[in-house]
């Protein structure tokens, strides 16, 4: 990937992150999840994201930083940000 593409990607990620920080949380799609634990392992404040994915529950803890580490690291695209005003539509 050249630097332009890298920069563009970084900007996109940042924009998404800011959007999510305003009004979103992390929502799992349990059918895609295989409980590998990469999400929980990378959570900087130790939220057990994997458990949320097992139970099909969004990560609504007020202390979630919505930093996006779990979303970005999940190798199976289980996690996504969703705007809180759209929940619980899914």
């Amino acid at each position, binding site marked *: 990937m050249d630097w332009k593409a890298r920069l563009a990607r970084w900007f996109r990620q940042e924009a998404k992150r800011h959007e999510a920080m305003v009004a979103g949380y992390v929502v799992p*799609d*349990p*059918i*895609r*999840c*295989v*409980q*590998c*634990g*990469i999400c*929980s*392992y990378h959570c900087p404040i130790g939220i057990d994201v*994997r*458990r949320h994915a*097992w139970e*099909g529950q969004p990560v609504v803890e007020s202390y979630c930083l919505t930093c996006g580490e779990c979303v970005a*690291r999940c*190798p*199976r*695209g*289980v996690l*996504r940000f969703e705007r809180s005003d759209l929940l619980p*539509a*899914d």
Partner: protein
Amino acid sequence: MRRYVIVGTGVAGIAAAEAIREADPQARILLIGDEPEGYYSRPGLAYYLTDEVPEKQLFPWRARDFRRLGINLWHDRVVALDPRGHRLKLQRHSEPVPYDRLLLATGSVAVRPDLPGVDLQGVVKLDTLADARRIRQLARKAKAAVVIGGGITALEIVEGLLHHKVQVHYLLRGDRYWRRVLDEQESRIVERRLSERGVRLHYRTQAAEIMGRRGRVTGVRTTDGRVIPAQMVAIAVGVRPRLALPRAAGLRTERGVLADEYLRTSDEDIFAAGDVAQVYDPRVGASVLDDLWSVARAQGRAAGYNMAGWKTPCRRGTPLNVTRLAGLTTTIVGQVGQPARDGEDDLVGIIRGDSEVWRSIPDAIVAQEGFSVNRLRLMVGKKHLLGAVLMGDQTLSRPLYHLIDAQADITPIRERLIQGREPVAEVLAEFWIQWSRQHGTQKPQS
């Protein structure tokens, strides 16, 4: 107080134990598994091989989770099952173990090909955590490895070995990767990415013999007489349900333990779920094997409810797997089958992360678009979408799963999809927004 015994500590067994506890708070639940590690994420082993996750993180449950649900966990091997006496005989525990309801969730094991040298030190498979540890240990010293097999597991091993800087020789029996499920372009994308990372692909090549010296692997001799020097040989040619116990007990089996849509076997107090079970699907009128984690979980849960008396048919959803092929996130959903050609198949068993449904050949037209790393293939039926393969960008994978699973009527966009004058992804995205507003998105099955 009813006594429930679950044999197998994989996801089907765990899901069953949870369901039994929910339906029968007084139940006595005993979980018996022959792996000392108990319950861990088997699919997560791929990420353990690549150091994306440490070993201890692979365990979703801790001791306190078992305590909370009041589940007894034993490390032992069941050596005999007596359905009449409602008893199990274990290897380590001397007393026979009685049960009122039994679940067989013993999974499957890697097929061991009949190949000279297969017992040599350095020949590996990827079934269990112990196997993954062994691969990591050997990869630290090995210079070169030969990988045999044509599905997801083989590639997981390839990636693990690449991560450990081992030169990988990948033997493909046919002329491309995973012909049963992928189309030619998809295979080529995967192969190209592998070559770029230094994997040597050997097409139309089979191993004739694993060579060794003093009990250790030294290489592979191919059927066309070439010798590939290697210190490791990894074999992933499919898995087979573990049937010794149910067969000896006289339960009805075919390729798996036969179970009805309530997961009940031919014995009314014995149930089966997960890889070991061949479950009747009323929609297709046949009994089907699956090797998908999500299916094993759904079956385990339904089995648990049924064992406890909550009548719950196991509706077989649209098969879905998300995996990584040569570093490329890939979703396979519904029917995407390729016509098989004789002698082209690397797989003798069903593979892990596989569903037989994928290989049923749909009566469909293929609409596709994309370039090397963002590719979408859609199987378009007369009124519905039947299946899809997405590589790279996954934005559409959730919408597609729901549209395929709900058998959404795509008549309004069918022509546009097939004619291909507009980008397929855009047509779909637009349709999805309207459709999901009208129908809501269903809660994904879990």
